[in-house]
């Protein structure tokens, strides 16, 4: 019974791979991973556009989410009295619990028209996706970075201040660098969440199975590729979607392992 989590993980890997790997083999790994054409009805199964889409959207999410998140963590940890952060913590947890479809909805109703009217393009774009995804990973980044800052020994701060540093200098030059590994862990976990997000991305990315050339272009990610077409795919097409899942699985496992290794090293 205790091995349930391991067995489930193994089962998941097994079945996804069992469905997906044969297709990758048949089509050829190079052609699958680097092919630019995704036309299932014609037997073309290249997922490079989706890989690129995932990459850009995730990068954008990090550009938005990490500075904001770390800033909020600094805010909660250093610039407010403990009573305020006591209220903030459950609030952040609450926001983390909001379903992704709600975020996607807001993106659809508010961001997409905003982008379309002011910056051009269809609105359903990488930009919209990055912004929303960035907001969605904020709770992860904030809570873990805040933990990292809180875990620092008081002597760091006291030492710096007693040497004549201003509060800000202490934060910028002493505390943040010291909390670096915790912040990095939070970034990696945030990346994991970003790469794995599906519903919100389906709603606002536009889902064009083509290489995005600018941030105003529509795109697809590995996840949305599966989410959109799984409902009606059959045969090879379906297997190709599982194959997309295989690639996704590898990326996530890689990120996860990285995060676990880093956090273990922190604790040691």
């Amino acid at each position, binding site marked *: *019974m*205790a*091995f*349930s*989590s*391991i067995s*489930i*993980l193994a*089962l*998941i890997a097994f*079945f*996804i791979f069992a*469905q997906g790997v044969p297709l990758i083999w048949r089509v050829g790994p190079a052609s699958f991973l680097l092919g630019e054409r995704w036309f299932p009805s014609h037997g073309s199964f290249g997922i490079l556009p989706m890989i690129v889409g995932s990459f850009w959207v995730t990068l954008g999410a990090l550009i938005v989410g990490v*500075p*904001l998140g770390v*800033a*909020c963590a*600094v*805010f909660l940890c250093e*610039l407010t009295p403990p009573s305020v952060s006591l209220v903030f913590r*459950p609030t952040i*947890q*609450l926001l983390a*619990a*909001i*379903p*992704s*479809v*709600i975020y996607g*909805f*807001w993106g659809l*109703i*508010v961001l997409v028209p905003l982008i379309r009217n002011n910056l051009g393009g269809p609105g359903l774009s990488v930009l919209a996706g990055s912004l929303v995804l960035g*907001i969605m990973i904020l709770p992860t980044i904030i809570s873990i970075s805040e933990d990292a800052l809180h875990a620092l020994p008081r002597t760091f701060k006291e030492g710096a201040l007693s040497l004549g540093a*201003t*509060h*800000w*200098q202490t934060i910028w030059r002493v505390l943040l660098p010291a909390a670096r590994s915790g912040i990095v862990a939070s970034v990696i*976990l945030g990346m*994991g969440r970003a790469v*794995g*997000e*599906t*519903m919100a991305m389906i*709603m606002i990315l536009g889902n064009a199975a083509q290489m995005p050339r600018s941030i105003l272009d529509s795109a697809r990610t590995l*996840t949305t590729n*599966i*989410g959109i077409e*799984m409902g009606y795919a059959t045969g090879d097409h379906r297997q190709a*979607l599982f194959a997309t*899942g295989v690639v*996704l*699985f590898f990326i*996530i*496992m890689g*990120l*996860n*392992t990285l*995060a*676990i290794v880093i956090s273990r090293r922190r604790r040691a």
Partner: protein
Amino acid sequence: MISRYTSQRVGKGVVWVAAFSTLAVMIWILLQVLVEGLPLLNLDFFMDSPRQMGRTGGIFSTIIGTLALTAVAIVIATPLGVGTAVYLREYTRESRVSRIIRFGTDCLAGVPSIIFGLFGFVFFVILLRMGWSILSGGLTLAAMILPTIICTAEEAIKAIPYSYREVSFALGGTRWQTVAKVILPNAMPGIFTGVLLGVGRSVGETAAIILTAGSSLLIPTSLFSPTRTMSVHFYILAREGISMEMAYATGAALILMILGINTLANWLLWRYFRKVGG
């Protein structure tokens, strides 16, 4: 050269702006749905089932679907999760085996919901022939919330003082008796909070459910019936553009439910720590 006091003012200013804009955006997102959706909520909305593919009517069948799926997930994941936590903390010491189990649990926690959906589809729906059903969806959900339950249960068990165990053994208790009479009753509040968090996650889950529970608008009649949950309904309404009004209303109901569950969980945690600390 900028004086360090100026750079402090700038730095802190940036942080304040960041914090408040984050808060502002979060509130905006919630209010967006609540402001339009709350006025539309009334008893009829909850008691009536969707009609005309959701263009009119209420969300009754989806509420049933949500409750049913969550119930199945909790019933399966809780014993499994608590059992794993008890095993990790009470029956073994830190060893290769326990490290592997923990690694597996951590990894499972990071698997995206769409992958769970794919797995649930090929394993429960197709292989085990459960079809698109509450059972398929519930089992998939159970796998998704298992890491959460294991984690919170472990924390709850860890918090119990070692002396309680020593006393129980010294009075002639077996390991099982100690677990059943001392560990579990005292860990219950923490475990319950974990269960509530799992409930919250189940209610908000969409991707995995679409692929395993289907999207039927009919009130489910058995564990093998397909069903639609509130979050799936919300997604379909919004994406297919069926009815923005209904989407707002459903979204508001969804947010309320999740806020309620999370507030309950946080309140319980707060009460529990006050009792233990005091």
